[in-house]
């Protein structure tokens, strides 16, 4: 029976053995978060030790004597045993201290605090744009081409989204700069001094992701449109907006949100090249600089914070999916 609530292949949430599904879900996620954090702390610390090259030597310059390098190594605490360095690092973390940059001697928390908002700004605006464009576009094309209609539109959609989706962000970014900054002169080529400076980097990030997600939404929508409950809904001659918004869209959200969450998590740590092309003062460009300078504390702190954010984002997506489809609380989709 079709009423005012959304219809679809949903079923009541499966309950765990004596434990409320939400309690079990949160316990599993929190335990996973704790394990991920511990692993991140250990792995990032050990990773730094495996990188060849001496940070003190890199900082001291080509003409420094061995004594000067040794003095710098002592100042940076690199002459201490590995276990002592790790204990100091881990103890600092427990007190909320991510350490101090080898290069600039700034607190790492301050480095991340000043950079993360810029990366988050890019990533969040990009993901909002992606969701706002990709979902309606994918749905509209799926609806318009349902049952093999409008073959040319289907081909054009496939071609354009395939082309833009496969274009690397830095190529797209460079093209956007060439057209809108250098040729037309209507937008800044780089920097973060004005709100308009956001337009090109956000577009460079969002357009390929929009195309990829739109293709997924289109395919998902095409599948949903063939379901029996959609045929029934169409048979009741519901208004198109209500038909697609209330009965098709909720059943697309699982895949869309999952993809959106993964994309956002990827954007937070993966905007390095776009930040470089647009000289955007985000975390990605700072990490590259830190890697080149063997600035261990900044690398460790950034990887840790990005790892925590990615884990929390995944948890948030799981939470949303749980709200939308309680079956996922037990870690499976089937009832």
């Amino acid at each position: 029976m079709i009423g005012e609530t959304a219809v679809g292949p949903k079923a009541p949430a499966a309950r765990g053995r004596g434990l409320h599904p939400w309690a079990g879900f949160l316990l599993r996620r929190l335990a996973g978060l704790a394990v991920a954090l511990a692993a991140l702390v250990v792995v990032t610390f050990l990773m730094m030790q495996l990188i060849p090259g001496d940070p003190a030597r890199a900082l001291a310059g080509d003409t420094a004597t061995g004594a000067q390098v040794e003095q710098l190594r002592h100042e940076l605490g690199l002459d201490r045993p590995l276990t002592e360095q790790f204990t100091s690092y881990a103890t600092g973390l427990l007190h909320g201290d991510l350490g101090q940059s080898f290069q600039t001697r700034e607190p790492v928390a301050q480095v991340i605090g000043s950079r993360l908002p810029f990366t988050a700004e890019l990533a969040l605006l990009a993901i909002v744009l992606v969701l706002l464009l990709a979902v309606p576009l994918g749905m509209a094309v799926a609806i318009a081409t349902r049952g093999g209609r409008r073959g040319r539109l289907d081909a054009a959609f496939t071609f354009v989204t395939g082309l833009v989706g496969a274009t690397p962000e830095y190529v797209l970014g460079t093209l956007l700069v060439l057209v809108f900054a250098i040729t037309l002169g209507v937008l800044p080529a780089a920097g973060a001094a004005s709100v308009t400076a956001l337009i090109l980097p956000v577009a460079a990030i969002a357009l390929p992701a929009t195309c990829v997600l739109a293709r997924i939404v289109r395919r998902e929508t095409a599948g949903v449109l063939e379901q029996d409950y959609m045929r029934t809904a169409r048979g009741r001659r519901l208004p198109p907006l209500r038909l697609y918004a209330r009965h098709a869209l909720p059943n697309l959200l699982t895949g869309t949100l999952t993809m959106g969450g993964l994309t956002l998590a990827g954007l937070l740590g993966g905007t390095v090249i776009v930040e470089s092309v647009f000289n955007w003062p985000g975390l990605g460009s700072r990490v590259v600089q830190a890697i080149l300078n063997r600035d261990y504390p900044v690398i460790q702190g950034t990887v840790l914070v990005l790892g925590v954010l990615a884990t929390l984002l995944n948890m948030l997506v799981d939470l949303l999916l749980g709200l939308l489809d309680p079956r996922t609380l037990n870690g499976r989709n089937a009832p």
Partner: protein
Amino acid sequence: MIRARTTASAVAAVSAALLASACTTSSVPESASGDRAFRVALTSDANTFDPAKGTAASDYTLARLQYATLVNRDAGNKITPGLAEKWESSPTSATFTLRKGLTCSDGKPLSATDVAASLRRFADPKTAGSGVAMAFGPGAPATFTADDAAGTVTVKLGRPWADLLTGLALPNAGVVCAPGLKDPQALARGPVPGAGSNGYTLTTVQRGRGYTFKLRDGFNAFAQYAQEPQGERPKTLEISLVSNESTLANQLSTGAVDYGAFTGPDAARFRSGGYTLKAAPLLRMFVVFNERSGRPGADPKIRKAVAQALDPAAFNKVYGGKGEVMKSWSDSTTPCANTDAASVTGPDTAAAKKTLAGVNLKITGTNAIAGGAGNAYVQEALRAAGAKASLRNVDNATWATDVLANKGDWDLTVMAHLNFPGTLTSGALLLTGPVPPEGRNFGGIENDAFTAGIAEAEGTTDQAAQCAGWAKAQKALLERDDVVPLATVPVAFVLGKGADGVVVNGAADPASFRIKS
């Protein structure tokens, strides 16, 4: 309801991010009202604001703005007045007479005692400053005395060192006023009120993003040049960090930046169209051998054969062909540098094959310059001459550890020498004296005639006699093939339309920048 809450959360998250970044964005340095700021782009951030400890181009640029030196250098390494209006020098001492009315950035008088204290701290081994050996000679103690009544500062050296004036003109020797000396850690981090002695004061620090400098009212001890730039000295200098040269080129071409330096092909975009492009050698590339016992480089025949296997002209083409094929460890713009091709072992692959066939050679090179393309050329040339050449093309930090600190397994390297002072001494300090960790002689070169030539050159202030000493030193090094000169990699300094500035001895003076009307 769920969707409403989700939407609200997303909006809140985006708003928070926008708000957070807007707060940060709002603190972007703004120019003084009514005066256009001069906008400088640096390709990397500074390691330190402490002039004594600077090691990179960005360190020097920022130090030059805040901390004046006793003397300056004009084209051709000519020493010109700085904080000192005149001086008398010998190979073992120099007395500088300060200008009248010098002040620090807080307006307090800058005395001879203050200058001597700053130089004493620079020379102190505990400071671990860079460029100390370049200024006062390696391992030689220097003493500094001041006479406030006469306004003089006297430097006495433990052994002759003719490069004293050149060394004191380097940014590392910039004079730090008392407040900076009292708090070296703050000095390294950024602005210390009253620490500056030059015409610009650091007012805003945004690490990793940019810096703002303001012109001091009434300051009159700026470096003077034979060819002064045109226009007004800007009251505000805004320095941004742009690591990607293509991005920097975009900003220059759209007028968002007034000055930038390029090592890559983007400089070609500014050869016309009203820009000022001044090219200079940046890196001096030459082969250095590991000459320690048991290494192939210990054998003069192997070194000669390697020199015969390499074609410096072909090496130059690897980096675009815009550099100069060198005949010494520095280029022809360096005073006293050898330019005679007859002094250098020339390419002769046939001769090289006779010695190098089957010889194992481990090359370690830095990939910091064009991905290490020059290292790959050297490997292929040695292979073509029959050697079993292996290459470790590593990042700069690894290369410095393996080669400069001699902690790696290497037989030869392509040295990419920055030579900021633009002298033969700068490179020579890496080729003589104690080996690491005590010294800088990373190749373990033992060449007495070379060392004697340096001592002769540094023992006199007479230019001709210096060059005679350097000629002997270069001949001694080149005839033993201790180094194989290759080519320079140039840097292009580009000033935008309406901007001017001085580029001398391979460096731009940021305190000389002007805005043309």
